[in-house]
């Protein structure tokens, strides 16, 4: 295990995979000599050259669509979306082309491509540069959608995504880029599906994604001081969504709280709540609760933004109100 940042973990995965397979290439805005606005591609251009590390025009429809063209003709492209918010610009390519191409061909045309989208709030970027976007593509069959919450997950899931033979959307979080954690460099490729229990507990199940995982763990610390043991689960993958282990946890704790950095309506928390209710209805001691952003865009001003993002205190208070 090596202690590195989330940013270094992304870079390590890219380097390692690109060294392993010369069919892998990466495209995006300012990712060449500049190394990427968030420095997630630093050194790639120098090592792999302009053919495999391609600076694109500011044209997400163009280069994300081009990723599909590369993927169906023998390459394994990675497209970096500088801010996840810009997924809105290439929505058609993802939803109508990338997600459906293999299906429409009767399964014959494989599309091994990765879209990395760096999203999330907390850095004072305002409403158009702070969205996680994690649920925007949730209703689209044909996509795999993952959301790494730690350096180890970022490293492992990106490697797994690059090796997958189908389109994978990797949501990264810019507030996590500088966070450090142990990473199993060169370790086994983790699955792209399934949640992971990060802290065991018997009194409540708290499921979170991306930057909210850390806050849920902090909330669990606060709750422990009051004698409440929360089980914290990182959902990891939104598509396919495996709620089996979450239901398993709820059968033990009888309480379900989801935490996500997006508005409640249309979020993944609703789907988790529905699926757990379907499979573990008799075990729930309270209605599932969802801790989310308020139902307005992310505001700019620091106190406003801080108040909008679910805090450990808010998560803990929600759990407390149910147990």
């Amino acid at each position, binding site marked *: 295990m090596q202690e590195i940042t989330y940013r270094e973990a992304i870079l390590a995965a890219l380097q390692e995979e690109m060294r392993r397979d010369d069919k892998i290439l990466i495209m995006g805005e300012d990712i060449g000599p500049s190394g990427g606005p968030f420095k997630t591609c630093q050194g790639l251009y120098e090592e792999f050259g302009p053919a495999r590390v391609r600076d694109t025009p500011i044209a997400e429809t163009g280069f994300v669509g081009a990723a599909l063209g590369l993927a*169906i003709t023998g390459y394994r*492209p990675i497209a970096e979306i500088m801010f996840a918010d810009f997924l809105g610009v290439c929505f058609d390519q993802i939803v109508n082309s990338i997600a459906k191409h293999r*299906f*429409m*061909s009767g399964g014959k*045309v494989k599309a091994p491509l990765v879209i990395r989208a760096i999203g999330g709030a907390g850095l004072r970027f305002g409403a158009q540069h702070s969205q996680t976007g994690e649920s925007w593509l949730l209703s689209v069959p044909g996509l795999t959608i993952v959301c790494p919450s730690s350096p180890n997950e970022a490293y492992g899931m990106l490697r797994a995504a690059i090796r997958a033979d*189908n389109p994978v959307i990797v949501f990264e979080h810019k507030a996590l880029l500088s966070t450090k954690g142990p990473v199993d460099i060169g370790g086994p490729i983790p699955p792209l599906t399934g949640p992971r229990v990060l802290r065991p507990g018997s009194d409540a199940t708290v499921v979170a994604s991306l930057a909210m995982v850390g806050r849920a763990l902090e909330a669990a610390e606060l709750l422990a001081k009051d004698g409440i043991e929360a089980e914290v689960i990182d959902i990891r993958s939104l598509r396919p969504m495996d709620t089996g282990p979450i239901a398993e946890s709820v059968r033990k704790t009888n309480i379900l709280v989801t935490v996500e950095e997006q508005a409640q309506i249309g979020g993944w928390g609703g789907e988790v709540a529905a699926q757990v209710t379907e499979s573990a209805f008799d075990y729930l001691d309270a209605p599932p609760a969802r801790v989310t952003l308020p139902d307005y865009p992310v505001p700019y001003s620091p106190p406003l933004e801080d108040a909008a993002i679910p805090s450990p205190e808010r998560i803990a208070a929600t759990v407390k109100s149910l147990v």
Partner: protein
Amino acid sequence: MKAKTAKPQRATAKVRPLTDKDRLDLFRMMVRIREFEEEVQRSYLEGLVHGTTHLCQGQEAVSAGTGIVFREDDYIGYTYRGHGICIARGMDAEAAFAELFGRETGVCGGVGGSMHLTDIDKGLIGAFGIVGGGLPVSVGAGVTAQLNGRGQISATFFGDGATNIGAFHEAMNIAQVWKLPVLFICENNLYGEFTRINHTTPYEDLIKRAKGYEMAAVQVDGNDVEAVYAATAEAAGRARAGGGPTFIECMTYRHRGHSRTDPAKYRDPKEVEAWLARDPIKLYEAALIKRKLLTKQKAEAIIAEERAAMRAASERAAAAPWPDAGIDFQALTFA
């Protein structure tokens, strides 16, 4: 309608002259595409084709004239009005009909349908139902062609309407900046769905679009199959040699409406009449008779043969079983 030809901007590659056999092949291919589409139309009225379908009668010279240029390892992207290029590329007609009929033996197992005929083994990388949606994908195939370094090209077919959507401009820009071996083949049939080009676009000569990207461009009579061939062959030669993309505007006309529910009453009957008089198959038949490569009787025999072949393929397709309704989506798309 006079067809104009713009001068290409770069030194031209040599174009292989057509042989007499090529000419007869081109004629037969146009007839085959026509008869395929006529059979689709007949089948639609019989209830064998479902939903909608977009026919290309009148535009056969574009499919045949470009199709003869492509190599087996080239990548071809197209649209929902793409049956013509699929047939020109050698897609099995029975498998194409079966796909349109939603049958198990369809080229995509009946999952794709009329708008999504795809046959990756023949370089037919995909039919895109969203206007302009296929252009960036063809640009990606163009990157593959460039990286492979074997002189492959990527060609992408689209209509006049697509030149108004952002994907077109992003694709043109990237292709030119990266000097990709991509042929942008615009079938300008003057109508985007039900609306004439002058209501939606600042000019009718879409070759002007290429100027903004400093891309080599040529405008040809899209109903003259040899003109289409010459322009495409020249552009392909340039692209294979590393000379970058070309925008090829083929001025043409669809004989039918936008889709099967469209009687196309919005068109001036005089305009329709003028274009029907310039039917690409009739024009070429007359040209080949003049060259003494064809007689009226021989032409009729070719038409009869192709009609019978398409009818037979369609009948075999119609007898094919439906797909299994218990389709395993996970296995189909994630295995």
